[in-house]
């Protein structure tokens, strides 16, 4: 187990390094971060030269990458300047926007796990029942639904037509408390929270549905497979109650492969979050990525891709550890 952990951690380093380099190279191709300045009549060409020099933009790609990576790991220069939000560094911009993304995507991740695993087990135990068919259809629906369109549909139905939920944003600008307008930041914490939850309900539904279908199906087939294993028969032959047979012997084995699947689905989750934020106009890092790419905000885009990669890699790493903990065959190898 210890060797395994050490090996997995060591493996992370080259992977992250490669991701960093590839994304750096790609994003650099997107454009010149200082190009916008050229159009500005108030900025002198010498200043642009100076800026280019400060950010090593006049150096070869590999050198520039090295400095950027150094800055990313040890952010003295704040990961570069944002052209999208003038006067801000990429680090400042991103760190302000990261909490909302984490809040709603982790909520939907947990919701998806809580829904898909029991429903998948239920579906498998009642194979070919009406409930199984309904769940199967629901799962396929979730798997096939284009996220962005689903988001638009929910907005149309629940925001535009029914007015139950807001159509955009993740909090209101101000509250009216006792007839007095109070800015969001100044409002009591519980009001902030309720308001955010209200705003994020639809996005969370979108992102949960996006994930739940595939896992439900996978859990179902995993459970079906395990149900016919020899050790399940042994458990019955021992005279254990059916509940123990299913939930102790079958379930534990069936859920192990799901852990890997969830770990591998992090890139999808990030993509889904990006689309959802864009559709619902939530100022998280997903929407920021889109805006940064569209406005050629090179430093911000680069940092974001790097952050996403780290998240994915950490997700995979955690899944591997959970897997090893859950399965003694791995644990001791």
């Amino acid at each position, binding site marked *: 187990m210890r060797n395994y952990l050490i*090996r997995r951690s060591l493996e992370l380093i080259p992977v992250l390094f490669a991701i960093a380099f590839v994304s750096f190279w790609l994003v650099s191709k997107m454009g010149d971060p200082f190009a916008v300045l050229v159009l500005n009549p108030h900025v002198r060409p010498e200043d642009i030269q100076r800026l280019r020099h400060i950010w090593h933009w006049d150096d070869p790609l590999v050198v520039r990458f090295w400095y950027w990576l150094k800055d990313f790991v040890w952010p003295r220069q704040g990961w570069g300047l944002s052209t999208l939000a003038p006067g801000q560094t990429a680090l400042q911009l991103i760190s302000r926007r990261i909490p909302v993304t984490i809040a709603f995507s982790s909520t939907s991740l947990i919701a998806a796990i809580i829904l898909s695993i029991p429903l998948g087990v239920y579906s498998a135990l009642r194979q070919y029942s009406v409930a199984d068919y309904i769940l199967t259809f629901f799962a396929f629906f979730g798997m096939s639904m284009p996220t962005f369109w689903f988001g638009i549909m929910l907005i149309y139905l629940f925001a535009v037509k029914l007015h139950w939920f807001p159509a955009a944003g993740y909090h209101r600008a101000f509250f009216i408390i006792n007839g007095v307008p109070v800015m969001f930041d100044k409002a009591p914490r519980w009001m902030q929270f309720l308001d955010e939850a209200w705003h994020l309900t639809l996005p969370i539904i979108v992102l949960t549905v996006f994930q739940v279908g595939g896992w439900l199906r996978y859990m179902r087939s995993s459970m079906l497979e395990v149900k016919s294993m020899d050790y399940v028969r042994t458990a019955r032959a021992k005279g254990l109650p059916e509940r123990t047979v299913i939930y102790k012997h079958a379930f534990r084995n069936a859920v192990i492969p799901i852990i890997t699947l969830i770990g591998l689905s992090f890139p999808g989750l990030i993509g889904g979050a990006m689309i959802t934020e864009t559709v619902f106009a939530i100022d998280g890092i997903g929407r920021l990525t889109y805006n940064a790419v569209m406005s050629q905000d090179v430093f911000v885009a680069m940092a974001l891709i790097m952050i996403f990669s780290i998240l994915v890699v950490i997700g995979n790493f955690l899944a591997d550890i959970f897997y090893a903990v859950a399965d003694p065959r791995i644990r001791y190898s």
Partner: protein
Amino acid sequence: MSEFKDKKIILEVKNLKKYFPVLGGVFSRPVAWVKAVDDVSFHIYEGETFSLVGESGSGKTTTGKTILKLHEPTSGHILFEGKDISNYSPSEMRPLRRDMQIIFQDPYGSLNPRLPVGEIIREPLAVHKIGTKKEQEERVVEIMKLVGLRPEYLHRYPHEFSGGQRQRIGIARAVVLNPKFIVADEPVSALDASIQAQVLNLLLELQQKLALTYLFIAHNLAVVRHVSDRIGVMYLGKLMEVADTKELFDNPLHPYTQALLSAIPIPDPDVKKERIILQGDIPSPINPPSGCPFRTRCMYAKDICAEKTPPLVDIGDGHYVACHFVKKGGKVEYSKS
């Protein structure tokens, strides 16, 4: 005593070793080696059936497959008709494959499920570009008849046949090139009792008709006794005893051979024989005992057994034993410790 004494040696194996790496540690490097075959030497005379018997992990199958260069030997020499083939590359081996063939254990896994039977049997001819397609097809029909398959089933797929029939297909594929030497790797152990005899009979019949030499690999001693001229007993990658069939069964000298023979159940309720029940498990070939590999379960083991590996020595008349206490002329000096 052996009528094979003046016969030509077709295959000779000298100090053959085959180690498989066990990967592990932080860098997935080999941290240990499975000593599947560990310094094995024997020879096979032309036209005989030489058998290797042993339990799982004894390396008998690995020996057979290494001889055919399906595994690269770690060290040692394999001489086929006098040529040392142990360092032959795959392309150098290719022409030799016409003379050396193999019959596999698993009648289900050894046939490509997506190819019709005719194609499976024709494949060797196609690979070696023997004859025109029409000639090849005629040869396939001929071989199918020889092994007792109806030629009408040419276009059927393996899954449409029963285990015994599939084994016949595997045998047809092995003999279609007219080989001289065949490794039969547990050819009947996956078959039902009533089918085993049919396949054994076919193997014996083909040996006579086609002048084949067999290296017969099996764990069932009763089967081995029925088909072999000479037998080698393997344990944990090493040969323990080699002798003529009759000699081995009448006069087993190695304690392991004795235990193995006594462990075989006899299909006769009246025969109640004194069992030698070996204690303990077969050790892992990753970490075999020092000295004699059998010493951990041997009731005669003494200190010397842990210190020195007993060599396989000829004690006379082609009877070889690897035990410190068996001397020339079959004199036995072991006693219970």
